C-alpha cells in the first residue's frame, strides 16, 4: 500500500491535542472528520488574500473569489464524475440538500397519496423531511426493512416500488452500522419503473469512489465536514433535466434573473438553487479537501480503512459479552456495539476520560435502534489517520470499563 500514515497524521494538527491529559484517540469520524492543514490554510487564505462577495463584481478581488468558488464546483463535479458543473448545487450539508429536494421536488411532483420510499436504517435527516411532507401534502412514507445483520431486504421491493411511488431516497452507507447498501440494484429497479432515486452519500464519499453517471442516480447528496472539509458546506448533485424542471428552494439574491413587483424570473443552474451569498470559503475548503483525498487516493483510503475495520473487529470480538450491530458483508469502517448491560452513555463517558472519543446513543437513527430494541450503541468509526495502536487503546479502555462494571 502506497500511504504513509505517520505523514498523514502530521497533516492533521488537532491530532496533537491532549484530552484529559491523554493523547487524543478520535474514533468519531462518522460524525465529523478532522481537517488537514491544507484545508485550514485554504480557508484562511480566502480571508487573508481575496475575500470578496462573489458573482457580478467588477473588481479584482470579487473576480478572484468567484473564480475560486467556481473552481471548487468543478472539483466537486470531477470528484463524483457529474456530467456538468452546473449540476452541483452548494448547500450547507446533507441535511439541507435533502430538505431542498424535499421542498422543491414535492412542489411539482408530489401530491396526496403519493409515496416516498426510504429504508429502515436511514439517518433522521432522510426520514423527517419526508414526514413533514406527509403532514403538509398527505404523501405516504414507506421503508425497505432490514435483516438482523443490518442489510436491506429487497424481497418485496416490487411491491414497495409501485405505481404510487414518486421518489426513492436511500442512504448509500448506514451511518450507524456502516452497511453499504446495494444502491445500484435499487436504482435499476426504480428506473425500470421511471422513478427517480436520491442517494444520501454522507457516509460514502470519504470512503469510496462515487461515480454518479455510472450509478445513474438522479440525485446524490453529501456533506463537506465528513470529507475532511469545513463545516457548513455540502452538495446536492442533480441531473440537469430534473434540476431544470424543479421549483427554486429559497428566494433571494443570486437565484434571480430579473425582479419586478409584477414578477420574477429565475437564474439558470446552479444559481437558481443558491439564494443569497454562498459559503465561498467553505467551497474553497471543500475543493482543498477533495485535492487532499485524491492525493492519497480513494483506493488506498478504502484499503487502509478496511484493514482497520478487520483489525478492530477481530480485537473487539475477543471482549466477553460484546454484541455487534451491523454485520453486513459489505460495510465501511464503522463498528457499532454494546458490552453486556453497560449503558452506552456510561461507556462513552469512561472512554472519554481516557482520551478516546467514540459516539454513543441512537446516532440519529432511532427507527433502527427500535428494530434492535436497544437505546443506542457505542460507535467507533475510523478515518484515514487512525492506527491499529489506537484500536488497541480502545480495546484496553473497554476492558477496563467492563472490569469496573463487573
Amino acid at each position, binding site marked *: 500500500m502506497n500511504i504513509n500514515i505517520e505523514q498523514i497524521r502530521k497533516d492533521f494538527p488537532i491530532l496533537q491535542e491532549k484530552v*484529559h491529559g491523554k493523547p487524543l484517540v478520535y474514533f468519531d469520524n462518522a460524525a465529523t472528520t478532522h481537517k488537514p492543514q491544507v484545508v485550514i490554510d485554504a480557508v484562511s487564505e480566502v480571508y487573508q488574500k481575496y475575500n470578496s462577495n462573489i458573482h457580478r463584481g467588477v473588481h479584482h478581488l470579487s473576480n478572484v473569489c468567484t473564480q475560486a468558488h467556481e473552481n471548487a464546483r468543478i472539483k466537486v463535479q470531477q470528484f463524483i464524475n457529474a456530467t456538468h458543473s452546473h449540476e452541483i448545487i452548494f448547500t450547507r450539508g446533507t441535511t439541507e440538500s435533502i430538505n431542498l429536494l424535499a421542498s422543491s421536488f414535492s412542489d411539482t411532483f408530489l401530491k396526496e397519496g403519493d409515496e416516498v420510499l426510504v429504508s429502515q436504517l436511514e439517518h433522521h435527516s432522510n426520514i423527517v423531511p419526508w414526514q413533514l411532507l406527509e403532514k403538509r401534502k398527505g404523501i405516504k412514507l414507506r421503508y425497505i426493512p432490514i435483516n438482523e445483520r443490518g442489510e436491506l431486504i429487497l424481497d418485496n421491493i416490487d411491491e414497495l416500488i409501485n405505481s404510487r411511488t414518486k421518489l426513492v431516497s436511500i442512504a448509500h452507507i448506514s451511518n450507524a452500522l456502516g452497511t453499504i447498501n446495494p444502491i445500484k440494484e435499487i436504482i435499476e429497479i426504480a428506473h425500470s419503473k421511471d422513478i427517480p432515486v436520491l442517494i444520501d452519500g454522507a457516509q460514502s464519499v470519504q470512503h469510496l469512489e462515487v461515480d454518479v453517471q455510472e450509478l445513474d442516480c438522479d440525485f446524490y447528496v453529501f456533506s463537506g465536514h465528513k470529507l475532511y472539509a469545513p463545516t457548513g458546506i455540502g452538495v446536492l448533485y442533480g441531473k440537469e433535466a430534473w434540476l431544470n424542471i424543479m421549483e427554486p428552494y429559497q428566494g433571494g439574491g443570486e437565484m434571480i434573473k430579473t425582479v419586478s413587483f409584477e414578477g420574477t424570473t429565475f437564474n439558470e443552474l446552479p444559481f437558481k438553487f443558491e439564494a443569497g451569498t454562498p459559503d465561498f470559503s467553505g467551497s474553497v475548503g471543500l475543493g482543498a479537501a477533495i485535492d487532499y483525498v485524491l492525493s492519497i487516493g480513494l483506493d488506498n483510503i478504502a484499503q487502509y480503512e478496511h484493514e482497520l475495520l478487520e483489525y478492530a473487529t477481530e480485537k473487539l470480538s475477543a471482549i466477553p459479552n460484546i454484541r455487534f450491530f451491523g454485520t453486513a458483508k459489505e460495510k465501511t469502517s464503522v463498528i457499532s456495539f454494546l458490552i453486556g448491560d453497560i*449503558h452506552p*452513555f456510561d461507556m*462513552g463517558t469512561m472512554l472519554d476520560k481516557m482520551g478516546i472519543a467514540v459516539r454513543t446513543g441512537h446516532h440519529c437513527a432511532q427507527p433502527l435502534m427500535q428494530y434492535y430494541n436497544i437505546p443506542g450503541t457505542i460507535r467507533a468509526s475510523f478515518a484515514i489517520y487512525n492506527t491499529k495502536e489506537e484500536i488497541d487503546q480502545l480495546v484496553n479502555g473497554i476492558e477496563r470499563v467492563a472490569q*469496573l*462494571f463487573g
Partner: protein
Amino acid sequence: MTINEIQEEIVEEFSAFDEWMDKYSYLIEIGNDLEGFKDEWRLEQNLIEGCQSKVWVHAELDNDKIIYSADSDAIITKGIIALLIRVLSGRTPDEILNTELSFVEEIGLKDHLSPTRSNGLLSMMKQMRLYAVAFKAKMGQ
C-alpha cells in the same frame, strides 16, 4: 446536618480520590446502590428524556419535607442522582430553593450538568427545584 454540611461532607469524600477512575468507580458504586424508585412512578410524566440517558424523577411531601426519588438507565447518571438526592431529599422547599449546589463543581462533575450534556441531569435539577416551588405554593395555601 444542614444542606451545606452535607455538601461539604461530599466534597471531603471526593477529595480522597486522586484518580478520575476512583471517582467514577465510586459514582458507579453509589449508582448501583440507589434504590427506592417504585415501578408505579415510572411514568411518562416523570420521565426526562436526555439524548443519551433517561432520568425519572418523583417527589412527594412528608409533612413539610420533600422526599425525592429518581432513577436512570445509565449508572454514572444514577450515581450523580444519588448525590443530589442525598443533598436535597428530606428538606423543606425553602431550604432547597435557598441552596446553591456548589458541591457539583467542587467535585469536578460540573461538565455532567452543563446544558451541552444531554444526559437529562440538568433538566432533572430544574425539575427538583420546580417541585420545591410547587410544594411551597401548596403549603402556603
